């Protein structure tokens, strides 16, 4: 992994700060809010495909939020705890450490939903916002995940088992392109078993896929209801402890990244963010890849990251 240190810890969450790889750095630090599913290290899975390393090489000061592994004791952690608790505290820490009034914030997947909510509530702390495959419009989502979420008795799940168990997430993964992912992928693996680089990369990603933490019950309940079942976020009807999540309050520069072949968060689910915000300086980019391909592939290194870096450098 790219050298870093854990600079802050709150409950089970951690804030990582990566060591710079360039002599000069852009002034505004960047905080990455990773998804709640699987682990943050996909953004630093391999030196040749590392999202973090690439940004460091482009001269950015990168922080990463690791949400950790919630236990039964954390079942009451809700959306508000993540947005106004953990994320807000870490942003304040970074602002203080870097002597910056504002930071750049990137959210990936479900981490982007949290980051979006944060940006609407604390626009004075965010200079630039990057939404990578954000989960925004649950009703427009065309994935299988959204169909399962819409029919889920989430109240009963949280009441009976507390947190959303990883096994349920593995089931959701298993119904996404089951034959390509369940057969073709492994046939391909055995075909390339002599190729050390291929095997190394395959095992890194497989290990990452099989390592997802539970999601705190209260957060999961609000997630499924507000995003997938009632679709409150995009309709500007979502509230966190009485605070209104109004997407119109996002008026800083925003860069939205969407993958055309994303079968976890469909482009139809992510793109509405671009049209719902009030920002005058907004960019929407679409890439011919999938959900993970957008952040950890050759394409992300050659196209996605250079474009993001160029956009962010001009504003940092």
């Amino acid at each position: 992994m790219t050298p870093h240190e854990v600079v802050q810890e709150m409950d089970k969450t951690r804030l990582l700060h990566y060591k710079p790889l360039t002599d000069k750095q852009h002034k505004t630090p960047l905080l990455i809010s990773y998804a709640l599913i699987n682990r943050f290290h996909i953004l630093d899975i391999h030196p040749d495909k590392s999202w973090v390393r690439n940004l460091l090489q482009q001269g950015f000061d990168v922080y990463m939020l690791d949400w950790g592994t919630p236990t039964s004791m954390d079942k009451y952690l809700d959306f508000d705890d993540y947005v106004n608790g953990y994320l807000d505290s870490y942003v304040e820490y970074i602002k203080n450490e870097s002597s910056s009034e504002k930071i750049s914030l990137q959210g990936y997947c479900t981490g982007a939903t949290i980051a979006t909510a944060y940006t609407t509530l604390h626009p004075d702390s965010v200079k630039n916002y990057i939404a990578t495959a954000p989960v925004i419009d649950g009703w427009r989502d065309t994935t299988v995940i959204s169909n399962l979420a819409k029919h889920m008795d989430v109240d009963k799940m949280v009441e009976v088992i507390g947190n959303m168990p990883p096994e349920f997430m593995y089931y959701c993964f298993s119904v996404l392109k089951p034959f390509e992912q369940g057969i073709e992928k492994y046939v391909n693996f055995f075909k390339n078993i002599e190729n050390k680089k291929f095997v190394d990369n395959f095992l890194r990603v497989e290990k990452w896929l099989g390592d997802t933490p539970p999601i705190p019950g209260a957060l999961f309940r609000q997630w499924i209801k507000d995003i997938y079942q009632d679709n409150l976020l995009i309709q500007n009807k979502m509230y966190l402890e009485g605070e209104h999540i109004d997407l119109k309050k996002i008026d800083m520069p925003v860069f939205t990244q969407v993958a055309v072949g994303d079968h976890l968060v469909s482009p139809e689910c992510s793109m509405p963010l671009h049209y719902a915000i009030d920002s005058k300086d907004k960019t929407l980019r679409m890439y011919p890849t999938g959900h993970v391909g957008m952040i950890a592939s050759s394409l992300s290194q050659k196209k996605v990251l250079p474009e993001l870096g160029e956009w962010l450098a001009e504003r940092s």
Partner: protein
Amino acid sequence: MQSESSKDITDYYKHLSLFWTDIIHLMSSKPQALTSVGPMRAFATNSKKISMELIEINEDLMEFNKHLTEYYKQLSDAWGVAQKKVNLKAPEIPQGIEQIDALKEIWIDIFDNDFTELFDSEKFGNNYGKLVSKELELTKHWNNITNVILQSANLPSKEEIDEVYKEIHSLKKRVGKLELELKKKEMKKNSK
């Protein structure tokens, strides 16, 4: 639908088990009963609850099985339709060394499409939702039984532990917000 004979059998065992739990319950309330003190008495007193949970498990299990059968039926039907499509397409593949690879690709393509269509459908979502819901009902009964055993041993139940978790969460939240407010005020003061 449940048949008449299986309903009769269920009713029979329901009454039989309730009869015996009532007897145990009555016996345990007598001073001369073996289980007059300690956790065993509490357990005997609560054993009726366990019997009730077991009866309900049985009823929920039937519902669970109904949805599980439907789940596999949907998978099996989708498999049959997809395989028919592959069979129709197979003769069109040119003969040669690459035939197997081409067939495999077509097979995966058709199966992925058909199964994604199934997983994305209302009927699948509906049945799967009910299947998980019934599974959760079964887990709930198991939790309730465990609670009876825990209470018999004078240990806190799941609900009681949850109450503590809730209280801790609420306290942590309040303290966290106060700390953050203080930090923000301090930063504002320092920046002036």
